[in-house]
């Protein structure tokens, strides 16, 4: 496993190849459907006026996201009533739902790492080449293990989206993942899709 400290340097990103296992250490933010839609509508496409604490949150997360990573995760969090937050379970969620937004969000905030599961499509792959960035596949369902690698919850934004959808700012140590889309246009997901399709056709013909 290759140890990496966040934020990523451009050099590190370019050195990563599809299939590389990595261990991440540093600060990242969780975000899924509600966050991506909010970012896109309010600050990128601007189809919606900022309201409430929108602008404040925007400024705060902007600083945190530069060069760092967004993690597609809806965690189980303990300590909600006392605000002594602790991640109890924190595996990745399916990333494709963010495909319509991810590329633009990466470019807008200069995000170099997208972590999730299941991989993403052509738009995100293009953004990985532009920014540059990588898609990192975490181990789906490994919720307790990943929660243990979250050493500290530094804060939370937009808790009104609900616990799974809120933006949790977390410090991680040795967060395990595999590079499945790199900055050179390669995608392990596209490879496996093509190979398995050919294998299926062979089986169906038999």
């Amino acid at each position, binding site marked *: 496993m290759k140890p990496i400290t966040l934020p990523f340097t451009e050099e590190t990103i370019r050195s990563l190849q599809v*299939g590389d*296992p990595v261990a991440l250490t540093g600060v990242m933010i969780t975000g899924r459907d509600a966050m991506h839609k909010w970012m896109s509508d309010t600050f990128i496409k601007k189809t919606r006026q900022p309201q409430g604490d929108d602008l404040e949150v925007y400024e705060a997360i902007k600083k945190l996201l530069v060069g760092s990573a967004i993690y597609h*995760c*809806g*965690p*189980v*969090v*303990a300590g909600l009533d006392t605000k002594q937050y602790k991640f*109890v*379970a*924190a*595996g990745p*969620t*399916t990333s*494709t739902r963010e495909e319509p937004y991810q590329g633009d969000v990466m470019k807008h905030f200069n995000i170099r790492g997208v972590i999730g*599961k*299941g*991989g993403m499509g052509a738009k995100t792959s293009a953004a990985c080449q532009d920014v540059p960035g990588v898609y990192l*596949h975490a*181990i*789906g*369902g*490994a*919720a*307790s*293990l*990943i*929660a*243990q690698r979250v050493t500290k919850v530094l804060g939370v934004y937009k808790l009104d989206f*609900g*616990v*799974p*959808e809120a933006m949790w700012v977390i410090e991680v140590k040795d967060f*395990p993942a*595999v590079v*499945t889309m790199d900055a050179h246009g390669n995608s*392990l*997901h596209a*490879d*496996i*899709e093509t*190979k*398995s*399709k050919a*294998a*299926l056709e062979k*089986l*169906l013909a038999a």
Partner: protein
Amino acid sequence: MQDLTEALIELIRFTSTNLPNDVEKMLREAREKEDKGSAAQGAIETILQNVELSRKNSTPICQDTGTPIFLVHYPEGWSARKLKEQIRNAVAEATKKSYLRPNAVDAIYDKNSGNNLGDDNFPSIHFDEVEGDELTVELMLKGGGCENVGAQYSLPNNQLGAGRDLKGVRKVALDAVQKAQGQGCAPGILGISIGGDRGTGYFVSKEALFRPMEDDNANPDLDKLEKQLTEEANQLGIGPMGFGGKTTVLATKIKGMHRLPASFFVTVSYMCWANRHRKMTVRGEEIKYE
């Protein structure tokens, strides 16, 4: 009538945090089969560490604690209405204790209820009155990622060349696995129903998933197909998490039903490796979990 709320909270905790041994055993075998040092083997290794950790610390195996599906088999004398109330209370309480993530979202207004209680169908509870004096409650936590890759086929399916027979069932089931890729957190378990209407099709495909991992189907034709499907699905090379590899499907469970002359549905429910299901048996004061 006995109040089972506390016992039900324990059932939920047990299900959410303690993966059944037969599932874990198959994952261990899969780890040995994958190439040394491959991303596939690394994924299973991480999964197994996670399983141990969750059991030890009593924390959810996966943060998506899914749709709680309860199958209640109750003898005469119990009130289904009161049991339902107790189950709902237990679900809300287990959510407070972080054994479950708040997962009930109003589909119209996009609002999470915060306590896992939604409308009448969330959690999903099914009652069946049985003979004897034992009450059993089976619980499955069915994750969203794997639920999304489930599929229902109406046969014949010309594109896949699938007719209305077991050969056709084989074809569409393999198609479903290929389409799912790693998205349902492979390696998965296939629950397949043949026949029924669209609604019962999905329900029965999930009922099939309650079976033990390594049992045989009582119907020899279906037993043969189950083993064949598992083997052929693994030839697709999708592998754990879709990283490529030898283990895509751990087991296949099939159930046949009756159908309308006009319809022939094949329904595939995909269960992720986090195949969380448990059973509680109540007999007088004695309560047993397995």
